[in-house]
């Protein structure tokens, strides 16, 4: 029988993988996918702790996180399309006009 600790460690590992993706990849789409991995790592923590505490609140927060993830994906991908139209590349290094 897996314990709460199993799920928390899995969540930590997934979150680290997502963070590594955001830091190390040079492709806007892969960066957005890594953010999805991080959101899912948080989701599994919410559901596991909700199960541990015996409430449905963890699952409900998970639904809200999914909604926010859908909104974020829609706006993020619209930005990616718009940026690709301007520069014909997906590398974040090409979009540094606002960098100080």
């Amino acid at each position, binding site marked *: *029988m897996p314990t*709460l600790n199993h799920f928390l460690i899995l969540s930590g590992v997934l979150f680290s993988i997502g963070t590594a993706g955001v*830091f190390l990849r040079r492709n806007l789409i892969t960066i957005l*996918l890594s953010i999805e991995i991080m959101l899912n790592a948080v989701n*599994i923590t919410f559901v596991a702790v909700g199960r541990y505490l015996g409430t449905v609140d963890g699952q409900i927060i998970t639904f809200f996180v999914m909604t926010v993830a859908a*909104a974020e994906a829609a706006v993020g991908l619209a930005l990616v399309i718009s940026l690709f139209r301007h520069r014909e590349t997906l590398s974040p290094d090409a979009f540094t006009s606002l960098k100080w």
Partner: protein
Amino acid sequence: MELFTFYVLAGVTVLASLGVVSSRVPMHSVMLLIVSFGALAGLYVMLDAPFTAVTQIIVYAGAIMVLFLFVVMLLNQHREDEPEAMPASLLRRNLRAGVLLSVLLAIEVAWGLSRVGVTTFGTDPGDVSSISSVAHIGMALFTTHAFAFEVTSVLILVSMVGAVVIARREP
């Protein structure tokens, strides 16, 4: 037996996520992420959250990943054009930040786990059935969390309008 299932599902999730981050072909990344979400749905079932598992498949693997696939096909980039052409100084700086963050995360997780010790889930059947029941989720969602639910609809409207405006071709 359940522990074995957990390790199989967790292993699939972690390996698929590693593939997402390391694959050079965006299409493969999206497909591997769908595999990862499927295994995560299995983990939700193990946590007595079948409704969340179904939502995960329908909303995440169904809707959000189709959106990603559309964009990958629309941009038609089979591979990354530059083979990870990150300057050495930037790579070193990113690695340093990443190592710092992961060490901090590991310390936090270890501290938290040492505080709570090994915690097993409750096995009271009444407790479990009240968690996994869709009726209970609906009751809590539309009474206690009704305000957040309504605000979410505004958020979705805003993001829909925003996506249309941002992605519109300039006249």
